[in-house]
């Protein structure tokens, strides 16, 4: 009996040592991964300074016209840093980006909308200029402010617009139903409920991870999504590089 008890204690010890070894290995792997990311971060920071100083020539001529609509996703806790947001928007204005959608999950940016518009000379709200599904061609910068409620909740509101249409039509067969429930009808319904903005060509994520944080799903089908790192360490050179890389992309759209 003593022998069995001792064997059990021995197995327990072996298991604990095994667990400790596994945990140590796991932590070591993550330390190595973090060091790799740190090195990569330093290299990217150095490259962004070279781009800002105009040393890397290929970034000097940007075909900004290809970027018709840009979206920026920030963490809600960073959205309070309106000075950083304004600085970013001013960089975009300098580069020649005309139409920007600012998104944060909780709608903090929406609350600071008036202040941001005031600080940016001549900028106007996108909704005032957007008509007939065409992005306006104008000198002023337009800004749109979006939050999580413009995503799934907006789709539910649009669903109710289609539901009312469905009830009014008295549709009884599948063909009649299919005429109401189409993607184009859905797009119109989203416009009716005030969430029918254009699809951004490029979405820049400022945060710790590459994650769109609930940007309106209907408007992201073929949007390029680039992770820019935390907002507090944003760099002009990195912004230029992201826009440049976007202008080099060729999409097949499934073909």
């Amino acid at each position, binding site marked *: 009996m003593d022998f069995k008890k001792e064997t059990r204690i021995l197995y327990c010890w072996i298991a604990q040592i095994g667990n400790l070894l*596994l*945990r140590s*290995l*796991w932590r070591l*792997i*993550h330390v190595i*991964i*973090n060091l790799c*990311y740190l090195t990569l971060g330093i290299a990217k920071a150095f490259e962004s300074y070279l781009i800002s100083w105009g040393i890397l020539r290929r970034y000097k001529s940007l075909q900004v016209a290809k970027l018709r609509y840009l979206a920026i996703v920030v963490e*809600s806790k960073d959205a309070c840093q309106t000075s950083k947001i304004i600085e970013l928007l001013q960089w975009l204005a300098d580069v020649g980006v005309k139409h920007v959608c600012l998104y944060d*999950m*909780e709608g903090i940016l929406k609350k600071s909308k008036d202040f941001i518009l005031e600080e940016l000379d001549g900028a106007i709200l996108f909704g005032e200029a957007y008509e007939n599904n065409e992005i306006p061609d104008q000198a002023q910068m337009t800004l749109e402010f979006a939050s*999580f409620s413009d*995503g*799934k*909740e907006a*789709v*539910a509101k*649009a*669903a*109710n617009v*289609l*539901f009312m249409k*469905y*009830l009014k039509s008295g549709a009884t067969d599948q063909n009649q*139903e299919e005429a109401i*429930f*189409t*993607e184009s009808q*859905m797009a119109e319904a989203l416009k009716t409920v005030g969430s029918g903005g254009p699809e951004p060509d490029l979405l820049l994520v400022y*945060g*710790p*991870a*590459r*994650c*769109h*944080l*609930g940007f309106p*799903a*209907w408007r*992201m*089908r*073929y*949007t*390029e*999504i*680039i*992770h820019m790192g935390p907002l507090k360490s944003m760099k002009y050179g990195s912004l230029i590089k992201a826009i440049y890389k976007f202008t080099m*992309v060729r*999409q097949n*759209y*499934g*073909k």
Partner: protein
Amino acid sequence: MNNFSKVRSVRHTLSNLFRKGVCKVLSVGPIPTHIAFIMNGNRRYDQKLNLAKGTGHSIGLLVMLTMLMHCCDLGIRYVTVYAFSIDNFKRKPEEVERVMDLLKFTFELLSEKNSIANLYSVKFHFSGNLDLLNEPVKNAAKELMANTANNSKAFFTFCIAYTSTDEMVSAIREACDERRRAMQEQKKTGGNYGLTKPVEVVDIEKHMYMATAPYPDIVVRTAGENRLSNFLLWQTACSQLYSTPTLWPEVNFWHLVLAVLNFQRNHSYLDKQKKLL
């Protein structure tokens, strides 16, 4: 030759043991419940290696099955792949036919008794507008779902004839239909049919093609592309979007390990964001 095959067998065994060891180490940290793959780069693989058209897709499907096994070994319960988009029907008819034949062959292979589906107890599900598929492929898919209905260790979803926008419209149609039938029932029982309960987010979600799986923790896109291409747009609000420059037919266990390590680095942040929703 005998010695050569012995050496290969020993090497294979050691390689498996090493992979199992790596899985054990990774399991110390959080393991994603659901991983989704956008299997990009099959045609580029053909061009890169000057192969006959369609070879990349064939190898790609083998890689998909291998990755499914690796996910099972790592303890990832839900795996989803973007096998064929509605947009892909715009490709040349011979290419579409080739891919459809390959998918049918894969479904039939998986339906067999000794396939990995039963070895790993994987339940197969299909998300998408299956009415757009031809009869043989649709029947093979239905047979695979029926043959694996009782499996429960892992869940594999093929997104075929799928786009996220089509999924949303289809879910809205089902939700509206359900609401209309509920109103008609109320009318029959003499209830207050004048009041129309609005369609809510939860009504739409339960009719999504992907309602059978939790939201993905990671979406992996290969071949260096940085977009979702109309894939799981509704479900990925708090998903780690991971892009690798490797073409899909060249992807292996180590790419999965890197994706999981990346997920583990950002897990606490993404978890916090999920709680805000």
